[in-house]
């Protein structure tokens, strides 16, 4: 009689949204399969049908409160693509600045609040202590810096986007409100402080990373294709073409962002509400591709800003080009953060930012269009089909977490295999599994705007739940 067993972890903690992990063991008690899945439903893709296109950007941001601005920007770009609207240079710069604000709010949250506790405390530490609040108690200055850095990102969103979460100022055709000179000066001052904090965060991150690197490398890697927006090998977030490289670092394909849906396909699997995206040209599962911070470092050869560029070169020398180790996501995220602060400062130094030509008139029409940006977690695509009367007929969103979904699952299987032998579960399994998932910073809210999830690990034997961790 076969003796299959399943292990579950639920909820996975310190990630956005709720997830669940199930590990299936074979007859001899070794890992046969591992799944990371989502268990919540919201239904955005359906209930927004029929909505006027003009309302979409600020409503669709409700998919995710953590990266709401990224969704607004992808959404207006998709609509402008359909309307064939060219926005002004001023509007373009302000939007890029908003996106930098988004990267800063998100990455400061992920680094300080979600992943730092893993580096800061050893894995033997009592789990109830392994969190940012404990770090704040022991080292209040780290907490202060975390909050101040996030505040700068939120300030950018508030001043330019007019709300800190779910911005309202960005509309098809540009932005409603120009930036005032006084606001620019204040933001510039704040940008300098934020940049200083980011450099300290990088130093701290690097120190902790070096200390733990041996262990981190063991957490596994999964060599796949990598995808990111780029302008001929230079890091871009708001615009650019999509480049895909293979696991050796050679260019696999380059395409214009409006051809995204022709190049990336998605599929559903039985056991999760989150879909899987892959490269159409290679099919499933050969076309599995990763996106996000590490992918950005792998795809791009240079970064326009000084310090971030230096860090990128160092990253490539240290970890290889392309770099594969999963936990490098956390390191690469800090380089993103440096770039976001440097770029924000650069944009704010430009006095033409306060020009008042932020808005052009749009001419609604029917059609299909894609909007792509580089969101905190990777390449984000919104595709809408609009009717003649300017209403949403259907939409298709491919979210970074859907792209990384396959890699997360395979990585998970590797990590589980390391800790489970012949039915014996070694200590530390739970945290290692969660660290792997956390590295990808999956946003279950986004990937499952259709469904919500809460992470559980459950061990199942002969079809019955034996143990819940």
């Amino acid at each position, binding site marked *: 009689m076969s003796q299959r067993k399943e292990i579950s972890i*639920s*909820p996975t*903690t*310190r*990630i*956005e949204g709720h997830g*669940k992990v199930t590990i299936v063991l074979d007859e001899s008690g070794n890992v046969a399969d591992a799944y990371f*899945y989502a*268990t*919540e*439903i*919201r*239904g955005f893709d*359906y*209930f*927004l049908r*029929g*909505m*006027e296109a*003009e*309302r979409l950007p*600020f409503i669709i941001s*409700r998919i*995710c*409160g*953590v990266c*709401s601005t990224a969704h607004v920007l992808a959404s207006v770009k998709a609509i402008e693509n359909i309307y064939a609207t060219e926005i002004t240079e001023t509007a373009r710069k302000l939007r890029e600045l908003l996106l930098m604000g988004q990267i800063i*709010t998100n990455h400061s*949250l992920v680094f300080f*609040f*979600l992943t730092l506790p893993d580096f800061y405390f050893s894995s033997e530490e009592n*789990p*109830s202590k*392994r*969190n940012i*609040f404990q770090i*704040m108690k022991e080292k*209040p200055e780290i907490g*202060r810096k975390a*909050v*101040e850095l*996030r*505040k700068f990102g*939120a300030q950018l969103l508030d001043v330019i986007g007019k709300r*800190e*979460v*779910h911005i309202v*100022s960005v*509309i*098809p055709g540009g932005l*409603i*409100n120009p930036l005032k000179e006084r606001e620019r000066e204040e933001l510039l001052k704040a940008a300098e402080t934020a940049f200083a904090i980011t450099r300290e965060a990088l130093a701290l991150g690097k120190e902790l990373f070096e200390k733990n690197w041996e262990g981190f490398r063991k957490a596994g890697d999964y060599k796949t294709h990598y995808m990111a927006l780029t302008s001929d090998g230079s890091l871009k977030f708001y615009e650019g073409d999509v480049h895909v490289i293979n696991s050796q670092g050679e260019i696999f394909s380059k395409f214009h962002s409006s051809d995204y849906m022709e190049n990336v396909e998605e599929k*559903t699997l*039985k056991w999760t*509400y989150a879909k899987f995206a892959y490269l159409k040209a290679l099919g499933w599962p050969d076309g599995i591709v990763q996106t996000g911070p590490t992918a950005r470092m792998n795809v791009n050869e240079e970064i326009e800003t000084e310090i971030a560029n230096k860090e990128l070169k160092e990253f490539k020398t240290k970890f290889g080009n392309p770099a594969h180790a999963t936990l490098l996501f956390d390191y690469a995220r800090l380089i993103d953060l440096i770039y976001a602060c440097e770029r924000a400062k650069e944009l704010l130094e430009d006095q033409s930012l306060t020009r008042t030509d932020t808005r052009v008139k749009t001419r609604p029409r029917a059609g299909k269009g894609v909007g792509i940006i580089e969101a905190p977690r990777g390449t984000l695509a919104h595709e809408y089909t609009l009717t003649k009367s300017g209403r949403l007929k259907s939409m298709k969103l491919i979210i970074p977490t859907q792209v990384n979904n396959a890699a997360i699952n395979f990585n998970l299987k590797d990590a589980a295999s390391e800790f489970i032998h012949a039915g014996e579960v070694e200590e530390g399994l739970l945290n290692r599994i969660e660290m792997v998932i956390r590295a990808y910073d999956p946003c279950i*809210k986004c990937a499952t705007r259709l*469904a*919500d999830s*809460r*992470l559980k690990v459950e061990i199942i034997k002969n079809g019955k739940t034996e143990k819940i961790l």
Partner: protein
Amino acid sequence: MKLERETHMKVSILSLTCCAGCVSSLLNTGDALLEILSSDFEIVYSPTFIDLKEVPNVDLTIVEGGIRTKEDEELVKEARAKSKILVALGICATHGGITSLGDMFSVKKLLEKQYSFMDSSKLPEIAERMYPICNFVDVDYYIPGCPPMPFLIVHTLKSIVSGKLPIRHQSVVCTECHRKIVPAKLDRLYGIYEKEADPELCLVSQGFICLGSLTREGCGAPCPRANFTCFGCRGPADSLMYRSRDIYSFLVKVISVRTGVVEEKIRKELYRNPFIFHTFVFSKIERFKARERVI
């Protein structure tokens, strides 16, 4: 409800079906958050930040998100039983929020296109509708908003700590809006981006469908200040929460008086755009004892 305590209040933060925007807003409270954390609060349970998997007994539970699965329902009931005070944070928890628009379809319909073959034994059961949490548990304070402004959250939490009642916001957004209401003589209504809005005049009297006259104040009217219409993310004001109040007719009257457009035309326009009206409050709400408790 002053709490006798010598140490920090123990606090749980619960995320149900939502976008996590309310907890993001809580983090945006910045220095105030640090102050509360150092002197008053000890957050002991929060899957977003802390590794603890079991809901502990606490003094205060903050709930973001509404109830869309059986799991949500069980979790909020457990948290209520283990908590002295429970705060519903954000419009999903207080009124069902944007996810309640899914109530227009059956669950079967929402799932059938993509997921009809779903292996449901591994996934929590989806509820027939999206519900606000008050349908299942008693709520001590409601803070509606999508998301609520950081200062509203701080004010409520500080009041709870000091045992005082938080200031209630009962009236409508118009009371916080700087715009002048000057009745106009227009012949039709306008879409939100159809023309540039005058920065000083009431948006409704310029022909835009702004929901400020229905929506609960307390946010400081950030959207009208940004030349953007209020879209009702704080839910209806106190005066509109009686069953006898027909919110729809009220809005038609307000728009007609301020624009000079005949009521019939406005009614048609609103009927054509159902999303304007119910975006955040489409849920079936029960046991809403909110008149005394909405912040």
